[in-house]
């Protein structure tokens, strides 16, 4: 343990020193960490006893509250376990592979070294649930029947949420060290999510929401997902001002027990871990050979799975040719890249229409559709991130091409934008052909507003990635995500502010119109910035200094 602790100490010290000399590197991470921890602390202890007018406040049924929390915690738990099936948890930095794995430090100690990361994940996600939950209950003026004021949850629910999330993290880590062929399970897991979403929508449609609540509170759900149900019990008890010490104790014991399998097993998980790193590095090696090399590496890996490979016939010139090359590469996986988004959109559109009809309120269906779309947006942003990162690796290929920066950016982001566009189109079409209420507004929002907004966000992310392209270092990716969060947050707030006039005038059209109009200059601006950054990055191969880029524009 000692050598690794020593080394971590040096790493942190040097990182801090670098931060003072070069704030680009770790400044945003520190800022974001303080921001998150501050928010969690404020939510936990602050705002005590916000008075709620019982006449105005809507009483909230504890059973519904419990069902919703249980459901959210289960969803979070499944997402965490799903992350364990991917490469995230097991992918150690390559330096650890080279210097720690061959050294006489036992695997258990190396694994123990992973615990802080798992705990930070648990604090982050548990804290997020707490913040979202508290703000929803506070701002909707919901009260528990017996009380006329809202109280901050206090430390017990906070610890409970973190412990519950942490238990799932430990399980996910165990899964990733034990299961060699995780990627197959990964696909099943996506199936589980889709099935779960579909069955919930179906039950809601056929039997109504009360059936859902009773299912979530039944032992069929509560026992298999014990960490989720215990945490939700504690949260509900917290709203009732009953400290649930004993339940918390069970949860903490469960957390401790979930650590045991990690340290009892003697599997040599180094091989799995290196395989994850290797996957990345083959692509990276191939990237040195340019776009053709990447495609060769990718098609080689597809040959295993018996997927047909297509030769790329060139089309267009300049940026168009680049875009076409990306499309052709993506077409090798037509289902994942194009068909699934379109079908997903169509299914969701019909589902939203059906739920609206069932409940006699278009808003429920549209709300569901909007919520799911917002969640999926994260996936599409992730795809765009990968596209942007691989464009950096192909620098040598891109630099001699006579393409304007912004066109190159658009070409590189083409596939995720097209995929998202197909999703939106599918959803809008399906919703509109049913002729449900507000269909025209939804169609405009989905076909015009959303794709433009998405393109603008993806270009913004592109700028940030060019500023933080150091792919080898996991921490850098976190930093880059944080910077994007810091940059995007004001935009989201701004959009909220822009909606105020339309809320006052109660005109949905005005809202859609304002937001769409604003997105167009936003897109132009972000594309321009991304283009400039891309030209600079391609020319120098150096990280782009975001501040300098911005100040030169000013």
């Amino acid at each position, binding site marked *: 343990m000692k050598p690794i602790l020593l080394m971590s100490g*040096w790493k942190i010290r040097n990182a801090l020193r670098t931060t003072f000399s070069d704030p680009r590197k770790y400044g945003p991470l520190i800022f974001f960490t303080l921001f998150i921890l501050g928010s969690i602390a404020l939510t936990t202890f602050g705002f005590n006893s916000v008075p709620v007018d019982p006449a105005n406040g809507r009483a909230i049924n504890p059973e519904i509250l419990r069902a919703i929390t249980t459901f959210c915690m289960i969803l979070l738990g499944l997402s965490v376990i799903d992350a364990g099936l991917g490469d995230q948890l097991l992918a150690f930095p390559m330096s650890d592979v080279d210097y720690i794995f061959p050294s006489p430090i036992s695997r258990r100690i190396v694994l123990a070294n992973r615990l802080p990361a798992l705990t930070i994940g648990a604090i982050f996600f548990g804290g997020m649930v707490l913040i979202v939950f508290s703000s929803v209950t506070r701002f909707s003026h919901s009260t528990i029947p017996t009380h006329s004021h809202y109280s901050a949850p206090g430390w017990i629910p906070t610890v409970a949420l973190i412990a519950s999330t942490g238990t799932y993290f430990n399980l996910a880590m165990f899964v990733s060290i034990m299961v060699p062929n995780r990627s197959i399970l990964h696909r099943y897991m996506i199936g589980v999510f889709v099935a779960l979403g579909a069955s919930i929508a179906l039950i809601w449609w056929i039997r109504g929401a009360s059936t859902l609540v009773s299912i979530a509170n039944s032992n069929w759900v509560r026992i298999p997902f014990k960490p989720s149900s215990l945490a939700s019990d504690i949260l509900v008890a917290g709203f009732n001002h009953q400290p649930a010490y004993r339940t918390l104790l069970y949860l903490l014991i469960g957390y401790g027990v979930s650590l045991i399998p990690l340290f009892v097993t003697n599997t040599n998980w180094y091989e799995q871990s290196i395989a994850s790193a290797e996957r990345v590095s083959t692509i990276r090696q191939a990237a040195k050979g340019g776009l053709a090399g990447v495609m060769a590496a990718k098609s080689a890996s597809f040959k295993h799975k018996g997927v047909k490979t297509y030769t790329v016939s060139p089309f267009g010139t300049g940026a168009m040719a680049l875009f076409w090359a990306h499309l052709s590469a993506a077409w090798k996986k037509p289902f994942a890249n194009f068909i699934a988004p379109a079908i997903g959109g169509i299914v969701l559109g019909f589902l939203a229409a059906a739920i609206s009809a069932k409940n006699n309120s278009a808003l429920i269906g549209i709300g569901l559709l909007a919520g799911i779309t917002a969640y999926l947006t994260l996936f599409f942003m992730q795809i765009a991130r990968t596209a942007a990162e691989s464009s950096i690796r192909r620098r040598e290929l891109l630099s001699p091409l006579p393409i304007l920066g912004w066109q190159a950016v658009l070409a590189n982001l083409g596939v995720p934008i097209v995929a998202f566009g197909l999703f939106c189109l599918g959803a809008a079409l399906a919703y509109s052909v049913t002729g449900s209420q507000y269909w025209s507004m939804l169609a405009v929002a989905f076909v015009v507003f959303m794709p433009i907004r998405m393109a603008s966000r993806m270009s913004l992310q592109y700028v940030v990635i060019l500023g933080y392209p150091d792919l080898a*270092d996991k921490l850098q990716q976190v930093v880059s995500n944080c910077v994007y969060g810091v940059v995007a947050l004001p935009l989201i707030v701004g959009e909220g502010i822009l909606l105020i006039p339309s809320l006052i005038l109660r005109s949905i059209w005005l809202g859609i119109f304002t937001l769409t109009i604003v997105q167009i200059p936003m897109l132009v601006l972000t594309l321009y910035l991304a283009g400039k950054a891309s030209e600079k990055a391609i020319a120098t191969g150096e990280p782009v200094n975001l501040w300098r880029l911005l100040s030169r524009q000013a």
Partner: protein
Amino acid sequence: MLQILSLTKRFGAMTAVDNLSFSVNSGEIVGLLGPNGAGKTTTIRCVASLLQPSSGTILLNGHNVADDPVAAKRTLAFVPEVPNPYEMLTVMEHLRFIAAAYRMEEDLVHAEEILTRLDLWDKRNDLGASLSKGMRQKLACACAFIHQAQVFCFDEPLIGLDPKGMRELKSMMMERRAQGNAILISTHMLDTAERLCDRVIILKKGQLIVQGTVSELKSQLMSSAESSLEDMFLELTEGTPAA
């Protein structure tokens, strides 16, 4: 010192190393040769227990790598094909970490000598992120020589080194051989292998096709005395007789 007994490593349906047995004795430098994809890296990674062998046994100084990896690895120094230093550690901190990880008693007495020979002493306080490719390679070698290993495994250590670095590294290996250590290096530089290695092992598609000293191989193949290791290598791996 290092014994490999019928080692087999499969990746799915693909057999990367096929029933391979050989040993490296103390005071011996053995070259592991073979075309790309022959299974050299896979073999060396199995020795460092980075990969789990599909079957077979590896003994390091008598310790079974599978049963007692910590004791086995304490006697091993391993230099990977493409070393990745820690971006946020200085050169010296890398050495300190290795010293702590291998529980060295006398603390880094040789650090200055080793770093000076590899031209890294002036860089000792530089962060890993700022090192050039060759320096990263040298740093990994310095880490290998700093602790009291008895078995050395180098995966293509000479690629990317400047002439002086190559010469120093080779003479450091020869000093270690003189001290009775066992050294296994995989390489594509056949002329170096011919001069440096006491024995060579030639792999092809994961199988050992021939092993022995260079002169033994020559007599086995009944090649002319002037034919180089390169000629023999090509003859063995490509089936084209030397011109």
